[in-house]
Structure formats: C-alpha cells, structure tokens
C-alpha cells in the first residue's frame, strides 16, 4: 500500500512537471487550452480493424481537447456512393471523411486543402513514402493524410517452394516457371490470378507493374492515352499470357476478383498471390485460412524486363469544406495521423479488450521501426523496399470511367480476345472521354 502511494506520488510529480515544463505544448502539436471543447465531430470511415482501433483509442484525443468524436463506419462496398451523397448534401453532416484515393479527384471540389495548416503547425508530408503522399494530393494541393495505404507484395507458399526446390521468384518469368512446376506437380494453381473486372479496377494492379516497368505511362504529357505503344502492348500481352499462354493460374482466373484470389491462396488452391500487405494476417488466421504461418512467405513484387515499379493504393482522410468545425477537425486530423499512434496500432494486438490485428502503418518512421517489424515478421521492411519504386494510378476525376474501360478490356483479353485491338479500342474511347471533359 505504501509502495502504491509512493509510486502514484512520483508519477503525479512527473506528469505535472512535464505538463508544467511545456506549459503550452500538448502532444501531437495539438492546440493547448482546449479552445474547441464541446465541439462534436462526425467521422465517416471505412470498416477496417485499423480504424476500429482508432475509434477505441479516441478517448485520448477527447481528454486532451474536449472534442467529442462520433464515428460512422461504412463497408467499402457502399463507400463510394455514401461519399458522393455526402458531397451532394453539402450540409456538413460529416466533418472528416475517408475515401479511396482514386475517388479523391472527383470529390476534391468539397475537400479542404490542408497545406496552410501543415505549414502553420510544422508538419511535413515527407513523413510518408512518396506514393502515399501523392495519393492524398490533387492539382498540387494536399487534401488529407494517407492513413491507410498499401504496397503490393508477392505472397507464396514457402513449404511448396522448398519442397520443389524453387527459389523466391524475382522476375515474372520466374513466376511463370515456378507456377508451371507447381501446377504440374501439386495439381493446384501456380498463381492466384484475378483478371475479373469488379468495378474497382483490381485487375489493373498487376497490369501497371508490367507497363510501368517498360517506361510506358498511362497518359502522356498531353493527357492522351499512352498505353497502346508497342512496348505497352507487349507488356499487356505478357500480363495476360500468364493465363492464356502459360496457363499457370488457379481456377476461375477470368472471373476472379482480388478477394477470390486471396481465398484461393488461403484455401491452398494456388501457390502464389500478389496482393496488398494487409492480407498477410488473413493468410494464417485459422478462421479464414487452411494455411499456417510457416507456410506463408512474402517477397517484393517481381520485376518485368529487369525493372520493378509497383502500384500502391491508399485511403486518405480529408476535411469537408462544408464542415462547420474545420479547425477542430484539423486538431482531430493531427491526432489521428500522429506517428506514435501509427506505430502502436501495428504492435498492440488488443485495444480496450477488443482484439485488433493490424499491420498497416504509413509513416516512413513506423515502417523502419524495429518494434513494428518485430511484431509483424518484418513485413514493413519489405513494404519500404517495395515503396521505393511505387506509383499510383492517374489522379484525374475521369479515372474511374477510363480505368473501368481498361479493366474490362483486360478481362476480355484474358478470355482470349485480341489484346492489341482491345487496348487500342480502349485508348480511342478514353480519348473521347477526355476530349469531352475538356482536356484538349
């Protein structure tokens, strides 16, 4: 009992001295003096354990600032429509919104630029990898923080590769030959392919790896479609030939979307799966997967023609222009995006009694952090390496439409269509869309 009193007393002194020493300094660069106490903020975010844990932790923010935070979680499948309706409503019903980066340009007209605040409070966007930083920008302005962002990694069956003496694939040719071996000897798919067009352009993730590696861009400097160059077409053909020629894919390659591919890998029906790093824990979770941790390995994405450029995706948080509490929202954004929270979220496996498994961090410092890596089998190091050569899809409002054209073309190509014709056709259609939108 005496010991307890002594310890409490010492802690009290320590805390008050810390508080007293930095008299006007709250952590995370929050404004001291609780100037916005009593405000209520409404947050619209996607359903994911990473954000669920933020919600469970927001008491810290509430006690530091006196601002109450209400979270509304929407499943990803319904998020695009919900965000669009929030923009149409124009009534400040949500102060902070979370969205997919490819919808950012279309919603940018009602998202508040944070550049002014960043400068005032001395926060730099360089704390994020380049691709993540770009994903939250539009027309040179920073619209928000990329709090949930992913690089792609190649997951593979360590046990099967060891069994057949295969080394970790470093090029897409390696993938093809390893895939053939596995398919012949194990009777399961070599690669879990997902050529399906799902409305979110998932079959373009790998396609971009291929064409970017050849230096082909999606659009050229004049915003004309540039993927139908000879090297771009060849890269596309090579991508599709994983299924149509090399035949290394698991079943349902043409209709599968990313989720089907993940399930295929987790159920042991395919030996390789190129996908987002957050899928890692699902691959050995006994509730969802037949695999154990020892069977699942990961590596950087393979190279094509000697180069690796991978695709990164993100889900930024932004402040709504219609919000009536913009300054308070900025305070919230500062807390939400602080590096300490980012770090802890990937290490601590339980928050207020609820089990949370998350390996997503977006600060460069978190990715290099030893503690974070130790808790996650060093997947963050692999991610950092992958992000050194990463890019994002074109940030234009018309991208969902043009991307879907490409997505459908790729799916048709995977069913055996003429790749060159399909891609050139898509280029013509895209050019029409861009010209009507006033680009030339």
């Amino acid at each position, binding site marked *: 009992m005496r010991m307890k009193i002594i310890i409490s007393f010492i802690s009290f002194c320590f805390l008050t001295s810390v508080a007293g020493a930095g008299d006007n300094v709250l952590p995370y660069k929050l404004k001291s003096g609780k100037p916005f106490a009593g405000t209520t903020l409404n947050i619209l975010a996607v359903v994911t354990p990473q954000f669920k844990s933020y919600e469970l932790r927001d008491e810290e923010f509430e006690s530091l600032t006196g601002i109450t935070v209400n979270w509304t979680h929407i499943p990803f499948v319904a998020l695009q429509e919900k965000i669009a309706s929030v923009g149409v409503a124009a009534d400040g019903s949500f102060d902070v919104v979370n969205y997919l980066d490819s919808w950012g340009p279309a919603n940018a007209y009602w998202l508040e630029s944070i550049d002014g605040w960043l400068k005032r409070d001395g926060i730099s966007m360089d704390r994020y990898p380049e691709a993540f930083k770009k994903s939250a920008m539009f027309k040179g302005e920073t619209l928000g923080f990329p709090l949930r962002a992913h690089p792609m990694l190649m997951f593979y069956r360590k046990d099967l590769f060891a069994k057949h003496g295969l080394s970790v694939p470093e090029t897409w040719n390696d993938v093809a030959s390893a895939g053939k071996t596995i398919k012949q000897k194990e009777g399961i798919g070599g690669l879990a392919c997902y050529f399906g067009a799902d*409305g979110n352009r998932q079959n373009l993730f790998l396609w971009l790896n291929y064409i970017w590696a050849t230096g082909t861009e999606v659009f050229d400097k004049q915003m004309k479609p540039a993927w139908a160059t000879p090297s771009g077409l060849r890269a596309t053909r090579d991508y599709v030939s994983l299924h149509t020629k090399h035949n290394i894919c698991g079943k349902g390659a043409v209709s599968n979307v990313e989720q089907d591919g993940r399930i295929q890998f987790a159920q042991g029906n395919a030996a390789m799966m190129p996908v987002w790093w957050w899928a890692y824990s699902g691959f050995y979770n006994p509730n969802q997967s037949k695999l154990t941790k020892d069977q699942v390995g990961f590596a950087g994405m393979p190279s094509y023609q000697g180069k690796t450029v991978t695709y990164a995706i993100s889900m930024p948080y932004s402040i709504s222009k219609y919000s009536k509490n913009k300054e308070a929202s900025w305070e919230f954004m500062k807390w939400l995006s602080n590096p300490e929270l980012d770090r802890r979220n990937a290490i601590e496996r339980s928050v207020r009694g609820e089990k949370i498994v998350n390996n997503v961090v977006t600060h460069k410092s978190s990715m290099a952090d030893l503690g974070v890596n130790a808790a996650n089998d060093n997947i963050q190091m692999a991610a950092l390496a992958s992000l050194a050569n990463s890019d994002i899809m074109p940030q234009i409002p018309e991208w969902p439409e043009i991307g879907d054209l490409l997505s459908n073309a790729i799916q048709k190509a995977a069913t055996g269509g003429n790749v060159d014709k399909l891609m050139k056709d898509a280029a013509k259609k895209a050019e029409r869309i861009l010209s009507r939108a006033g680009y030339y």
Partner: protein
Amino acid sequence: MRDRLLKYFLVFPAIFVVASTAFWPLFQSFYLSFREWKLNRARESRALWDYEYDGLENIAYLFDNYLLALEDDLFWNSVRVTSIFTVTSVLVSVGLALGLALLLAPGGKFRLTVRTLLILPFAMSPALIGVSWRFMFQPDFGLFKAFFDVLIPPLADVDWLGDANLAMIALVGSEVWHWTPYLTLVFIGGLATVPQDAQEAAMIDGANSWRIFCDVTLPSILPVLAVGIVLKTIFSLKMFDQVYMLTNGGPGNATQTLAHYIYFNGFKYYNMGYASAVSYLLVIPMFGLTWLYMKLVFLKR
C-alpha cells in the same frame, strides 16, 4: 349517381400519394437529364441543379446527353444484353410459373406443402441472390461444381462466370429461380377466381383439358397473367443488384444490362445527367409494353 363521386373518391388517395412522393424527384431527374449534372463538379448553391452552364444558347446542347448515349457502343451493347436477358427470363419464368400454377393449384397436402416453399426465393433480396449464386458458381468450392462433378463431369471445370454466354445463362437462371416461384403464387391466386361452374360445364360437354384451359381458364386469368408479364418485364429491365453481385456486367461487358450501365455511369463515373438521360431512353420500351397491355387487357371490359 353516387357512383360518379365514389369512383373519383376511391382513386384520389392513391393519386395523391403517388403524386406527392414520386413526381418532384422524377421531374428533377428528367430536367437534369438535359443538363450537365455531374457529381464531381462544384455547385453554386445547395440545390441539386445549380451548376454553371455554358453552351446554353445552343438548343442542341440540351440533348447532349441523349446524343452521347446513342453514339456510345457500350450503350448499344447494354441494350442488346438487356433485350436478350429480359425476353428470355420473362418467357421462361412466366411459362414455367403458369405450368406450375396449374400443377399446384389443386389441393392436397403435398401440393400445399410445396406451395409454402414458393415464397422463399422471392423473399431473398436480389443482392443476396447475386452474391450466393456467385458463390455457388465458384470453380474451387462452389455448389454447382460439386453437382457437375457428380452429374455431368465434362462441365465440372468450366468457369461459368468467365464465359460470356455461360455468364448470361447463369444470370437468367438466377433470375428465373428468383421470380418463378412467386409468379406461380400469383397465378395460383388468379386461378382461384376461375369460375368453377364454367369449367364443370365444359367438362360435361366432353371437352378435354387442353380445350378447357384455352377456352375457360386462360381468358379468365388473362388479366392476372398480363399484369404478371408487365411487372416481371419492368423489374427485369431495371434489375441491377443481381447483375452487380453475380457478374458485375462481366466478363468484359457481356452481361452489362442497361440498369448496370446507368448505375455505373451515374454513381461510379459521376455522370448523373448522362445516366438520367439513358434511363429516360429506357422508359421507351416500357411505355410500349404498357401501351400493349392497355390495348389487350384494359379495354376488354
């Protein structure tokens, strides 16, 4: 005399409800189909239609959205897909439903038990049906794969949703599964009103079942049958959730119905004005169908 007032009085509440709830949004969307209503543009005020416009002096500008639709070969593709889908699914489901209704109408414990099952497929939401059927068509662990493994081995490894024609069959199949049982219930209800005495008279006269069907039953249930066809057609033309979940219009655009095309252009590509214009093009065949109904049924009194 009192009837004259009564008939308007009976109709008034319905007209009032429909007018007050449906007309204003419809009018707005119709108006906006002539303007450049895009969800990715800033508006001048909080009203839905306050955009800056240019090109107002050009009257042809008003029809931009409509002309755009007619030029787009993806639009024509969806017209083709929707026609094939609607005609097939209406014919199959109405035909099956009529046959089943005749089979299940008589009493008896067995028939009654089966009749209670008829409501189940319709009680499922189209989205749930789309997602379940997609699951059942899964090449790795889907139910149909297991079926084919046992019953029709050559079909076992087929990727149904990866082939343009098979995906359409899958889509029609799920739609038939969804609607036929309910339509059967509707037709059974209709058969209940067939005058029993006329049927008995015909039987006494020595007519066989086919003749009884054509001369007594069919004319009697024609109104119900016609309503069933009209409603089913309208729902098939508008069907979206099932396509979205089952094939998402794939592979490529092979099963992209007009409703899917409209939805994607509206919400996913943010071109709501264009989507509205296409919708108003879609209502043309519906009006045609209704006109046909009016000619054939409404005036036969």
